[in-house]
């Protein structure tokens, strides 16, 4: 049954991923909305940990998803947000209004970026460099930011606030060209030219931004500065960055090398040609912007490549209009109507109603059997149609909720591939039991926790190839994801053969964090510590994991499904995380058996065979324990009649049918009166209104509306051992 996926399986995996984009976009949208709500309701003075943790988790979930799907711009922005929130959460910084502002703006930008990805317009989202640097400044503890920075940040805000449609058209061209760009940057009309010198520091402080050096050739006016810049960032990003020191009106960026790459015949470039002629007469950098707001200026004789840098408030309108015109085109491509999201409770209600309908229909069918077909032919035909229609309806309604685990599992090969590549590790990904059907609601909720677990396994569990060889293990690590129905639950396991967890490290870290621990704690208790919020033993915080948010979320999400998480770990040999979920609405193939007048359901998956018992086949041992010999194997016999104290009204009848069941690796024989048939049953929880019943994993409703109990084969097998 086990199906092996090697992540090198090629384009198939890449293609599969796209089917989850929609889910991700929906989830991310919800998370961003939630974050916005929480941010808005956040009381800065009395912000409690729970609220901050909640906001942090939203950002973390969006980041995790974005990284999984390779939306690096979103992931980068949310990573920065997360860093800031993490500091707040740990009380290293105190929340203030400017943080909330920047976080809200970041959420808007993330949403806009996601919208671009959703409509397939990669690289056309709003620039985020400004936000990123502002967040970095806040994270670095620059509170309050220097007054100049505040001023320009506010000036720059309208640009950031404007939705994705406000993207500078020139930037579209840039993203097409990509790569290293060679620019001339002029700061003109400066009151204090020294301000511009601070820009040089920006390039020093922000890694990967590029190189800057003062422009040497040509004369420079007293109130101007000219620099040569080599960078991969877009002009918009640069302007946002420079806005810390010099407001946008005073910056002019010009491409020095490849004007033809940037040439965007439409938009401002067209308008530029007019003022450019005037500008050509004026010496560069001498206040020709004054009194001409919105008139795009240009330098020299290369208007196409000259980028207008002015962005006074009113020109923003003119600037956004050309790209705004593009949005309707993009709108046509959005696959919005493909799915609708409906509250699970509505589906549940539908399922219950259909269940009732089926029962009513069965009753009608039974009552109509006595009618004379010759007289009531029309009625009977109608009832037959009703029968078929209700069955079809029931099937369709049921299928709304049930989806195979493969939907979740197939998310991971690509993610692991990228992740392993990033971390320089070699990982094989193996999945088992993908056909296990799981309730849609569960699948949606289990995906995030599973993503965290798999990422954790890859990041923390699997060692680097050198370390693995050193430890005498194969160079390539293996992460196994398996799903199975077990004892009335669904068990999903994430296993890796990595380095496992270090008990000592966790205890040390727990003490650092002031948790109450002792050396006498059992392993299981120690492993539970990693579920505490903010707990992480990773030395380095990467964008993959290590902030300690993962396990906290995992535990919380799974607990909300009434599930449990168990960890087994052995240092040096790997670890296993088992997520056990109750079968709230799993459909199961069942075999109904009769004992006395009662009906019980056996999970078909655990039924091996059944046969008529021969009187000489059963032998007893010691205190009456019964054994039966089935093909040279002696198996314990369990009489369901005795286990469930079934009353016997007809003393002549005895249980003479044997059903061999297998669970937990061993087999027992159940004695029943008769085999009634096989059917799909909807597993209902007995515990929601009653309590756990020994040897019973749940209940179901039969065709006649009666309740039948589903046997817990695992418990029955264990019972035979004692």
């Amino acid at each position, binding site marked *: 049954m086990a199906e092996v996926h090697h992540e090198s399986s090629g384009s198939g995996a890449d293609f599969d991923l796209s089917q989850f984009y929609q889910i991700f976009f929906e989830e991310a949208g919800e998370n961003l909305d939630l974050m916005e709500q929480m941010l808005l309701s956040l009381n800065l003075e009395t912000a409690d940990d729970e609220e901050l943790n909640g906001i942090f988790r939203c950002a973390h979930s969006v980041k995790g998803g974005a990284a999984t799907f390779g939306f690096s711009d979103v992931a980068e922005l949310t990573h920065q947000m997360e860093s800031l929130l993490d500091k707040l959460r740990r009380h290293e910084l105190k929340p203030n209004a400017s943080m909330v502002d920047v976080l809200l703006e970041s959420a808007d930008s993330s949403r806009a970026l996601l919208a671009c990805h959703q409509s397939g317009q990669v690289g056309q989202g709003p620039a985020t460099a400004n936000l990123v640097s502002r967040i970095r400044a806040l994270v670095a503890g620059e509170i309050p930011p220097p007054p100049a920075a505040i001023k320009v940040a506010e000036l720059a805000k309208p640009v950031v606030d404007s939705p994705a449609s406000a993207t500078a058209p020139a930037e579209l061209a840039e993203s097409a060209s990509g790569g290293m760009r060679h620019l001339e940057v002029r700061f003109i009309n400066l009151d204090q030219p020294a301000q511009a010198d601070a820009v040089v520091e920006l390039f020093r402080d922000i890694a990967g931004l590029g190189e800057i050096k003062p422009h040497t050739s040509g004369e420079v006016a007293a109130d101007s500065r000219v620099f040569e810049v080599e960078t991969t960032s877009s002009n918009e990003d640069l302007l946002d960055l420079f806005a810390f020191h010099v407001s946008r009106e005073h910056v002019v960026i010009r491409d020095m090398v490849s004007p033809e790459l940037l040439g965007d015949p439409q938009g401002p470039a067209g308008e530029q040609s007019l003022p450019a002629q005037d500008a050509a007469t004026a010496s560069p950098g001498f206040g020709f912007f004054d009194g001409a707001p919105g008139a795009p200026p240009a330098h020299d004789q290369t208007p196409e490549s000259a980028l207008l840098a002015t962005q006074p408030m009113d020109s923003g309108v003119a600037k956004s209009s050309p790209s705004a015109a593009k949005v309707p085109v993009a709108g046509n491509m959005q696959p919005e109507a493909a799915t609708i999201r409906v509250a699970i409770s509505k589906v549940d209600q539908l399922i219950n109603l259909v269940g009732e309908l089926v029962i009513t229909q069965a009753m009608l069918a039974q009552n109509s059997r006595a009618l004379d077909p010759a007289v009531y032919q029309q009625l009977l035909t109608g009832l037959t149609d009703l029968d078929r229609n209700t069955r079809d309806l029931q099937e369709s309604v049921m299928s709304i909720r049930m989806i195979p685990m493969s939907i979740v599992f197939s998310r991971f090969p690509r993610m692991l591939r990228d992740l392993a590549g990033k971390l320089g590790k070699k990982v094989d990904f193996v999945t088992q039991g993908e056909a296990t059907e799981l309730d849609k609601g569960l699948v949606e909720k289990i995906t995030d926790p599973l993503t965290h677990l798999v990422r954790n396994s890859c990041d923390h569990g699997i060692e680097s190839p050198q370390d693995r060889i050193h430890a005498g293990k194969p160079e390539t690590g293996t992460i196994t994801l398996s799903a199975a129905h077990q004892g009335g639950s669904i068990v999903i396991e994430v296993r890796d053969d990595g380095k496992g967890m270090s008990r000592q490290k966790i205890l040390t870290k727990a003490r650092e964090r002031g948790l109450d621990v002792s050396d006498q704690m059992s392993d299981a208790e120690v492993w539970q510590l990693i579920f505490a919020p903010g707990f992480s033993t990773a030395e380095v915080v990467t964008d993959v994991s290590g902030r300690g948010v993962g396990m906290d979320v995992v535990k919380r999400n799974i607990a909300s499904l009434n599930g449990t998480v168990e960890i087994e770990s052995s240092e040096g040999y790997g670890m296993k995380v088992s997520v056990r979920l109750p079968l709230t609405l799993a459909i199961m193939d069942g075999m109904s058996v009769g004992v006395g007048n009662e009906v019980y359901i056996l999970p078909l998956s655990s039924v091996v065979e059944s046969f008529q018992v021969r009187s000489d086949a059963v032998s007893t041992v010691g205190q009456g324990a019964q054994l039966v010999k089935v093909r040279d194997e002696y198996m314990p016999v369990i009489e369901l009649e005795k286990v469930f104290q079934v009353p016997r009204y007809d003393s002549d009848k005895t249980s003479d049918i044997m059903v061999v069941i297998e669970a937990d690796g061993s087999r027992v024989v159940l004695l029943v009166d008769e085999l009634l048939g096989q059917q799909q049953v909807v597993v209902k929880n007995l515990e929601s209104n009653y*309590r756990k019943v020994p040897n019973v994993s749940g209940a179901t409703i039969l065709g006649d509306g009666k309740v039948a109990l589903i046997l817990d084969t695992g418990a029955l097998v264990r019972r035979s051992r004692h």
Partner: protein
Amino acid sequence: MDKTNEESNAKLCEYLTFRLDREEYGIDILKVQEIRGYEPPTRIANAPPFIKGVVNLRGTIVPIVEMRLKFNCANAQYDDFTVVIILNLHKRIVGIVVDSVSDVMGLVPEQMRAAPEIESIINSDAIIGLGSLSDRMLILLDIEKLMSDADMGLVADV
């Protein structure tokens, strides 16, 4: 009810009254979800005798408690008047079997008496008081407390 002014109207409690053998009981109407005829439930092995089993209530599995067995009534017969009161308690749904449902009654505080200390099968905590209605006596039950008692076996003992 004529003399009830607005003040006592606020304190008016409505009770659903039902009969068990010759005794009359009242429970808070707000805890009652619906009233149904009796249908044989599915027996649950190893449960106390007063738990008749579970029934299907429009897709929900609901345990059925036989109040007449719980309160040691002499005879518990199932006829056309036997009804099941479906209670909604703390998000749990439980059905109780009673002889018959009488009516819904509003009681003002003046009509309520404290229950004297008496020896009874019913845990005295679960009796709110006695309702005095001319010649009838209503035993007012805190049905929520009664059903969550450990010896009811409805909730798994941890």
